[in-house]
């Protein structure tokens, strides 16, 4: 039986990331089974941060593929720079060999992850932006750990299977074949205790009373009815930072009337209005 001690790489959190025990188990099992881990959850629950934290704690390079709606899968694999080649064939002064197409192939993010000499963490951020075909085809490639470069008839095989983290903001589900090939975890919004730890990690010197007052107010503001974009962890951290940076600020201000720096927490004018009048 494998015990935690003899497993080589095991994820147990990083300097600026507070890891939920349940999530740690799921990350470790995904790495052991060599399966991509799909993370869902509302913005600000640290989905993207997790990949950074894994890379940091396991000392692996991190490669990030930011998915865009117009993206084609081949863009994530490799790019064939036809324009440069066309240009070189016209003005033969680049030093590149025009008849060697390989010189015009550049690796995309997935290609880089496959070609890397060292095991890497591959973060595929916001997969829900792409269409279903992109998602399914991508999983095919991540399953087989290889793809073909058609222009030069070459197969790129992954030297090391990357640790793959996929994030999605969507409330709706991805396609079944996609889900079938991933491990899945939904990150709930941190509760107060968890959030207190997160704040402690980011602001080790923060006064306890101030932290409590901020959290109290933060969770109350999240519950204001009708708010469209609820403030998340990122907003809270920025807000605390703003409060700290203000020399005139003192804790009494939070308890009395106006809340300072509401614009850091809320990004829409209607939300700011609702929050300041609740």
């Amino acid at each position: 039986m494998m015990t935690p001690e003899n497993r080589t790489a095991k994820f147990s959190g990083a300097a600026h990331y507070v890891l939920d025990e349940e999530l740690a188990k799921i990350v470790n099992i995904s790495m052991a089974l060599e399966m991509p881990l799909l993370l869902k959850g509302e913005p600000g629950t640290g989905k993207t941060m997790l990949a950074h934290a894994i890379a940091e704690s396991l000392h692996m390079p991190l490669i990030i593929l930011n998915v865009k709606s117009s993206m084609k899968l081949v863009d994530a694999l490799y790019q064939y720079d036809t324009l440069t080649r066309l240009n070189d064939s016209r003005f033969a002064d680049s030093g590149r060999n025009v008849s060697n197409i390989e010189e015009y192939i550049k690796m995309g993010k997935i290609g880089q992850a496959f070609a890397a000499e060292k095991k890497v963490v591959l973060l595929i951020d916001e997969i829900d932006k792409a269409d279903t075909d992109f998602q399914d085809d991508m999983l095919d490639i991540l399953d087989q750990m290889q793809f073909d470069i058609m222009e030069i008839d070459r197969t790129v095989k992954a030297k090391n299977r990357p640790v793959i983290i996929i994030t999605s903001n969507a409330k709706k589900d991805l396609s079944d074949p996609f889900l079938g090939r991933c491990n899945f975890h939904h990150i709930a919004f941190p509760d107060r205790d968890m959030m207190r730890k997160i704040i402690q990690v980011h602001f080790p010197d923060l006064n306890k009373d101030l932290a409590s007052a901020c959290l109290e107010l933060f969770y109350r503001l999240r519950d204001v009815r009708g708010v469209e974009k609820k403030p998340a962890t990122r907003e809270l951290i920025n807000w605390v930072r703003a409060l700290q940076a203000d020399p005139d600020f003192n804790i009494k201000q939070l308890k009395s009337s106006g809340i300072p720096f509401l614009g850091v927490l809320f990004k829409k004018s209607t939300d700011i209005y609702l929050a300041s009048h609740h």
Partner: protein
Amino acid sequence: MFIHFFYSLRDKGIPVTPTSFLRLQKALGMGLIGSLDDFYSVTRSLLVKSERYFDIYDQAFAVAFRGMADVEATDVELAEAVKAMLSEWLKDPGAMAEALGLTESQVRKMTPDELVAHFLKRLKEQTEAHHGGNKWIGTHGTSPTGHSGTHPGGMRVGGESRNKSAIKVAMERRYRDYSQSGPITASQMGEALKRLKNLKPAGPKDIVNIDETIRQTMRNAGEIEIIFDRRLADRLKVKLLIDNGGWSMEPYVEIVQALFHYAQFQFKELEIYYFHNTIYSRIWHDPERYQKVVRVEEFSRLDPETRLIIVGDASMAPYELADPHGAIYVGQNESKPSLHYLKYLAGVFRHAVWLNPQPQDYWYHTWTVRQIAAIFPMFELSLDGLEKAVLRLMSKN
């Protein structure tokens, strides 16, 4: 292993697959799962692929493993359990004595009943000392010294540690909010509508058309000429017709508002019209249905590729739909029944759907709903229904 649990998930409607079950076996075989807590998290991440099912999973898990971890054991049950363990224990009196905090000779002097009593007393002390301490008795006594055993090897984590068993976590039903039966939320609606788009070239020419560039360059005898194209942008035209009159639509105001809001956000070319109960020769641009009248016949001049979405409960008196003079407002003189206009609209727009905020189960009790559903494809105004409607609107034919 755990095949019953697997099927209980399936029976409850979670789409678990055999592949994922085999993967779970692999994980078990690799020794990656050391405790029930591990099992709870890992199995969920392997088998359950949407937070909408997390709640059902929690319930199924609580039912399946409740007996294992003995959440609320009675004294009688405990005594039975201890007796069952005794025979096992007596093979190794030394270990037992240690477990009970007695010396070996003391144990030898005690009758089995005394032993049980002593054990239960010890157990009570333990329960009081640390909460949840009776958990180990339920593990069929293989670990009588009472190590909680929940995390062999102890994973070091910086964050919170839930001092609860997986069962207790499962019984909390933390994911109730996400379960599928819940009402549709505004943002879910936005997600569903996102799929509805019609991409056409628009905006500045800033994308290189490689094929055209090569062709043009060849025509220029090798002198490079780069050809640019416009980007694809969404140019879908949508007409949204909303039933905003009458008491029957009142309960659905919020959900229709959400649809309305996201539709405005999502579609560049959206026009919204209002009607009451059903459509006659006129509909209105203003929600009060008073000032801005639009004749339905004028719709025939619109692009037939326009998507028509009608929202209404389609419930009314039969004559409102079928009688030429069915309109319930005085002064609204009609010469044709509403059915005529509905069929007319369905004829003009190939891509038309009717969204009904009433649950589908109720539809077929109402004659008018059946009539309208025969003219327009009707979908429930729920996440599922909206997705199907969007699929229908995007289909090529």
